[in-house]
């Protein structure tokens, strides 16, 4: 955005905080990206696994601080996103809230607008995706809507940047107007049925008489009390228990009148209002069948839908592996030019440390980045275009078999590339329990490093069919372990409620920005682990500690798994990076591995290498997301499964081969 086009007379600089709020998939993030450009930081809300994106914009001589609230449909207490958003508005008091609305789904979006208006905060409404609405045959009279709501309205097509300048002008104007007004803004447009309105007012009056000040507007709190909102009740109960008593009586009265729970009455009232306002402001021209709907008929077709879903998943995997492999090769060559990464270098302690750290760095750069970046780019396309919701729709019933719903497919697919971003993306699931279930399944998924082990140990030295068989075995294990985890963590699974927004082609710049943000946060997490882990393991190896542990492990490696004694060291080194198993093996016995190991041993080593401890960075992200306890349980289960399955194969393979 150009800030010099319209110099303001107002020379003094003032900071405004502006929050973007609205439903999911209305184009909030596109607007955020347009406004803040490269000046953004993406982190987490304190103590929550909800993304917090904020950025800066200089506009008409003002420094604006912009925050992108999570996409939500309501201010109830079902998701962390909803709680985070409402607490932010109440506690941090943004100067203006820009409510972004999808023009093609006006009524449902207004339901949320009304809830924002209940909070009595300064607002500007941005009606986005005017172009998509037009394609659908919906024309919106923004002037009429502005009048009906009493809030400035700016129509935009954010994807092309249209209307954003106007939006910021209106926002700034609102911010300046409200600068010295600390009183709540009474929106007269929201008026519920008299039996409810009367009771809201009387609770408000009661609150005013108690001089209540908890950050939220009285009106909003009164409505929340009638809705029996647990968080607000808790908040008010600490200081004003009599208010709870008072409103409880009134809620009962409403329930008596309507024979419905009060929250249902209020939700219906909001929708009635939203429906009336929407109907007054929107004109349906002829309903057109859009290209998106035609495509949709194929994507969710009872037969073709499975083919397109499978194609999308396979395409994503192929793209990741082909591009990833290509990039990984190039990066390995470049880095190999600077320094060879032989894990067995000896020398001074500094050299060893450096060598280990460098090895870890190379592992990160050559393994994570080349696979993760192309994956993220394509995933972002699939996600933002709406294709992913169609895949989730088709796959929902299969995912239910391991206690997850359709949306959980996304992290699982990610797991084929790399477990770390996969576990990171389990955030899209609703409950902690489901996140853990999905993360657990992911730790068994054949990520790119595991694929390398299977290919280089088994495909080359045994046969390609055995390699394939191991891949299938891994899938079976994921399924079995998923089922077992479900038994171990019983509970109500969240059902799928997902908006199927219209298909559209995402804008390349927001895709790249999303990819960059995701990659950046991943690198911050993974790189230190790789570097430190590489260095520590290397030192331990040179000091002979690994050998010693290797000897301690012989009952397991030699007697139970039937592997040579040095296998313990291989597996320990493999914790940092699974390919170290192969690299070290080569340096022990030379390139012709078949001299050192029998086909049975190859297979067993590959199975154990494939299933045991995911890898340092995966453990790292497990700890970060779920805490040390869950991380160690998952890791221990991985280990136990690896040795159990490996042992079983060590016993039965001699009879098969």
């Amino acid at each position, binding site marked *: 955005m150009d800030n010099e086009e319209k110099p303001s007379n107002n020379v003094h600089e003032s900071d405004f905080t502006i929050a973007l709020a609205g439903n999911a998939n209305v184009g909030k993030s596109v607007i955020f990206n347009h406004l803040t450009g490269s000046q953004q930081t993406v982190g987490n809300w304190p103590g929550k696994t909800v993304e917090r994106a904020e950025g800066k914009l200089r506009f008409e001589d003002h420094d604006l601080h912009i925050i992108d609230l999570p996409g939500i*449909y309501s201010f109830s207490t079902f998701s962390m996103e909803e709680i985070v958003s409402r607490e932010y508005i109440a506690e941090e008091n943004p100067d203006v809230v820009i409510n972004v609305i999808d023009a093609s789904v006006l009524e449902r979006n207004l339901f949320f607008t009304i809830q924002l208006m209940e909070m009595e905060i300064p607002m500007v409404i941005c009606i986005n995706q005017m172009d998509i609405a037009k394609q659908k045959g919906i024309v919106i009279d923004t002037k009429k809507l502005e009048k009906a709501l009493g809030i400035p309205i700016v129509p935009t097509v954010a994807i092309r940047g249209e209307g954003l300048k106007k939006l910021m002008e209106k926002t700034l104007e609102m911010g300046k107007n409200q600068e010295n007004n600390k009183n709540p803004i009474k929106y007269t447009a929201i008026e519920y049925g008299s039996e409810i309105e009367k009771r809201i007012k009387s609770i408000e009056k009661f609150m005013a008489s108690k001089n209540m000040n908890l950050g939220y507007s009285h009106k909003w709190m009164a409505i929340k009390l009638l809705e029996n909102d647990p968080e607000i009740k808790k908040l008010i109960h600490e200081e004003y228990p009599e208010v709870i008593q008072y409103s409880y009586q009134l809620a009962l009265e409403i329930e008596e009148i309507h024979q419905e729970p009060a929250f249902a009455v209020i939700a219906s009232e909001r929708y009635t209002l939203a429906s009336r306002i929407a109907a007054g402001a929107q004109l349906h021209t002829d309903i057109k069948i859009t290209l998106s709907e035609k495509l949709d008929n194929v994507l969710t077709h009872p037969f073709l839908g499975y083919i397109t879903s499978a194609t999308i998943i396979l395409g994503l995997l192929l793209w990741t592996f082909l591009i990833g492999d290509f990039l990984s090769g190039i990066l390995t060559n470049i880095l190999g030019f600077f320094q060879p990464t032989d894990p067995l270098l000896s020398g001074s302690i500094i050299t060893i440390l450096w060598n280990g750290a460098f090895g870890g760095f190379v592992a990160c750069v050559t393994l994570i980045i080349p696979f993760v970046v192309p994956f993220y780019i394509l995933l972002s396309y699939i996600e933002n275009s709406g294709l992913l919701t169609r895949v989730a729709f088709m796959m929902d*019933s299969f995912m239910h078999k391991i206690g997850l719903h359709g949306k959980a497919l996304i992290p699982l697919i990610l797991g084929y590339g790399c477990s770390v971003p996969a576990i990171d993306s389990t955030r899209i699931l609703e409950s902690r329990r489901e996140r853990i279930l999905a993360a657990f399944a992911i730790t068994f998924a054949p990520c790119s490093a595991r694929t390398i082990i299977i290919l280089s140990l088994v495909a080359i030295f045994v046969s390609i069919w055995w390699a394939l068989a191991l891949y299938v075995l891994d899938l079976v294990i994921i399924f079995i372990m998923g089922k077992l985890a479900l038994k171990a963590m019983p509970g109500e699974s969240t059902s799928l409620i997902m908006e199927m927004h219209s298909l559209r082609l995402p804008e390349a710049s927001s895709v790249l920005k999303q990819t960059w943000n995701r990659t950046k946060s991943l690198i911050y997490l993974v790189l230190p682990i790789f570097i430190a882990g590489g260095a520590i393991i290397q030192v331990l190896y040179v000091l002979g500690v690994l050998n010693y542990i290797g000897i301690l492990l012989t009952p397991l490696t030699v007697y139970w798994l039937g592997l040579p004694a040095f296998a313990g060291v291989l597996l320990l080194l493999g914790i940092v990076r699974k390919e170290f198993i192969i690299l070290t093996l080569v340096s022990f016995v030379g390139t012709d591995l078949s001299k050192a190991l029998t086909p049975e041993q190859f297979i067993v080593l590959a199975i154990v290498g494939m299933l045991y401890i995911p890898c340092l960075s995966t453990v790292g992200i497990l700890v970060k997301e779920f805490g040390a306890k869950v991380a160690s349980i998952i890791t221990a289960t991985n280990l136990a499964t690896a040795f159990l399955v490996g042992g079983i194969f060590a016993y039965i393979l001699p009879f098969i081969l």
Partner: protein
Amino acid sequence: MSGNENLSENIEEYLEVLYKLGKGDHLVNTSQISGNLKIAPGSVTPMLKKLDKLGYVNYSPYKGAILTKTGLKKAKSVTRKHRLLEKFLHDILQIRKDKVHDQACDMEHTLSDDAERALCHLLERPDECPDDEELIPACDFSFKTCEECMERKNEEVEQVGTRKENLISIVDLKEHQTGKVLFIRGDYKVIRRLMDMGITLGAKLSMMKIAPFKGPVEIAVRGSHLALGRDIANNVFVEIIPEQVKEEDGATVHG
């Protein structure tokens, strides 16, 4: 057991089969019925004629029978009792899956409405029966929510009265059929989440897509499209709005 009781049990069995096979919206032929009840085709026709006379079905010779509105209501009520009993026998009494059907068949005819309601409370508003995962229909008592039913525990169902409308779960809607939401089964949490997404009592919704293998359904409500998992969709009950009425309303699905 008197002959009358035998007859009414027999009627209920027929209605149940007609509901299972025809859902009240299409004809079921005699051979399907005889196969399902494991009786001779010859004895089916006289019974269908009798049901026709009682107003439970419309019988067309050589074609079969279709449930009438009254018949559908009665059929749903028996089916509900049957499937609740199956759930009870399996989940609470821990009787083997393959045994519950026959046992439930014997018990369903004598189960009172109050006992049915109590069973529903005990089993926490189940939506699927254990043996063939078929949908348990909604009760016919005029409650708007399950919470209301719990709160009015002291009243007997006779005092509550029955529903005027014929409720149908949205999973039984056909693509492009439209219905008005009249009842949502489940606790506050489910209802609230649905309401936030626009599925309020009284809202109009249209079925867009039904995913195979008991997958989710896609509905259009208030101008937006939503995918609902089967376990949620099972619990949203509507009254079907006939096509013509819909067109008078402006041919849109905006509520």
